[in-house]
């Protein structure tokens, strides 16, 4: 389970968990979970287009992920319109994906891998870009930590102090898009989504401290992938099944923990 090839799997999955834990934290906090769903899944269409053109899928992923982020960020300025714009962006990208896949000759194998990932086939050469990206995403989120917090909690106050909520949102979506384009080939679009939402949602119900919640989000994401890889390795069941179920499991445990503790323990 910890042999040469599997070692790459452990490292890659851990890096992806850190990226997902950090970006997912703000996706959940900002109510951008639908965008977190749309961007990786839309990016998969870009990968299909890239393989049709015979270029590296990373480029297709990056173009579609960032393009999707720009579409969602630029058109969805009001909360009320945000969902619709996100949905339409996803629909357009999936439509293009359907076209690319139908025209392309190599269908099933590669598409399946992009949706569900190839964690058990990560090569050494793939580790470096993922690691670099992990650091870049962490730095990008860290640099904007306070504006991200302020615009999430008090958008009007942020605007009055000269912080553009819209620009911060666009920045965040692009960071999420870049994170996605590197992680989708490893864990797949659906897994990336699961890993971004479950752990972050669990973490925020356990603690009200913003810094602790972010660290916890990363820790739960790591625990989720490690458990999932071990179980998937033992049972031969698909990794995606375990990541999705364990992620949601953590959320339910967090929710229960909060219910058991008094809902307003600190007040009074």
């Amino acid at each position, binding site marked *: 389970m910890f042999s040469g090839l599997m070692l790459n799997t452990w490292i890659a999955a851990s890096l992806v968990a850190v990226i997902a834990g950090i970006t997912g934290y703000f996706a959940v906090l900002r109510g951008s979970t639908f965008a977190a769903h749309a961007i990786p899944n839309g990016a998969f269409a870009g990968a299909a287009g890239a393989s049709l053109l015979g270029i590296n899928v990373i480029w297709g992923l990056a173009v579609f992920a960032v393009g999707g982020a720009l579409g969602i960020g630029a058109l969805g300025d009001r909360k009320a319109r945000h969902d619709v714009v996100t949905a339409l962006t996803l629909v357009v990208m999936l439509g293009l994906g359907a076209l690319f896949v139908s025209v392309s000759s190599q269908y099933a194998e590669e598409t399946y891998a992009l949706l569900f990932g190839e964690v058990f086939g990560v090569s050494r050469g793939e580790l470096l870009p993922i690691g670099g990206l992990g650091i870049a995403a962490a730095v990008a989120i860290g640099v904007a930590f306070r504006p991200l917090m302020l615009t999430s*909690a008090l958008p009007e106050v942020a605007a009055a102090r000269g912080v553009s909520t819209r620009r911060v949102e666009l920045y965040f979506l692009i960071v999420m898009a870049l994170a996605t384009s590197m992680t989708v080939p490893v864990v797949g679009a659906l897994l990336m989504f699961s890993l971004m939402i479950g752990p972050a949602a669990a973490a925020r119900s356990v603690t009200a401290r913003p810094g602790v919640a972010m660290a916890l989000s990363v820790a739960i994401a790591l625990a989720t992938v490690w458990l999932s890889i071990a179980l998937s390795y033992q049972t031969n069941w698909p990794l995606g099944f375990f990541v999705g179920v364990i992620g949601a499991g953590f959320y339910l445990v967090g929710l229960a923990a909060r219910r058991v503790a008094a809902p307003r323990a600190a007040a009074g």
Partner: protein
Amino acid sequence: MITPQSSPPAAAPHAPRGDLLTLDGIGVRLGGRQVLCDVSFSLAKGEFTGIIGPNGAGKTTLLRVILGLIEPSGGRVLVDGTPLHNKNKSAIGYVPQKLVIDPDMPLRARDVVSLGLDGHKLGFAFPSRQRRELVLEALAGVGALAYADARVGELSGGEQQRVLIAHALISRPKLLLLDEPLANLDLRSEQEIVAVLGKLAREHEISVLLSAHDMNPLLGVMDKVVYVANGHAAAGPADEVVTSEGLTELYGHTVDVVRLHGRVLVVAGE
């Protein structure tokens, strides 16, 4: 935000020394519609002023003009004698109507207040004893110390309002702007918030400007009224502005002002 062409410098700046905020002939067009027309008033240091008017009269628009979020079509806003720019923006503390956050958001009351200190800057806010003390002091100043560690999304409306006021006060503004701070509060919270604000104006000489659709809760603390209706505004002491004649002129139709047991009732005429 300043449009000099509509107010020639020779005639306009009648901002007396000591006036913290001056609005001079402010007009606002939104979506091709004239929302506000020729609004002028000033606010002295430590003065408590209520922007009063019916829903949709343009109270929030007026506050947004002062904050620099809406460009007026005419007139000018002076803060401490100079037009609003990034430097004197910090002279204004702003309290939005309510928090629009997910109740599950991992943010304690003290974190919200801490964001008031430097939330617009990049990077993390590293914890320090000095920051901690400033935050607790701000919370204590509005009587919110008891729930400093509570998740802010789980606080009641009145408690959130206090936390938001502490958030605005921690950067030591000279002027506090509040958008409908009494909306949706129970009677007791309403009285407590008014008392907190009145104390800020009296004891700390912070000028308070707040919008409200009902002026009665403010009668005991308010120095001046800016009554907004029908796109126009009249400013002055409540006794002089809120009269049957004054409001009839402002609304453009008959309005009766009835004073009853120290309360003011504004009733539309026939």
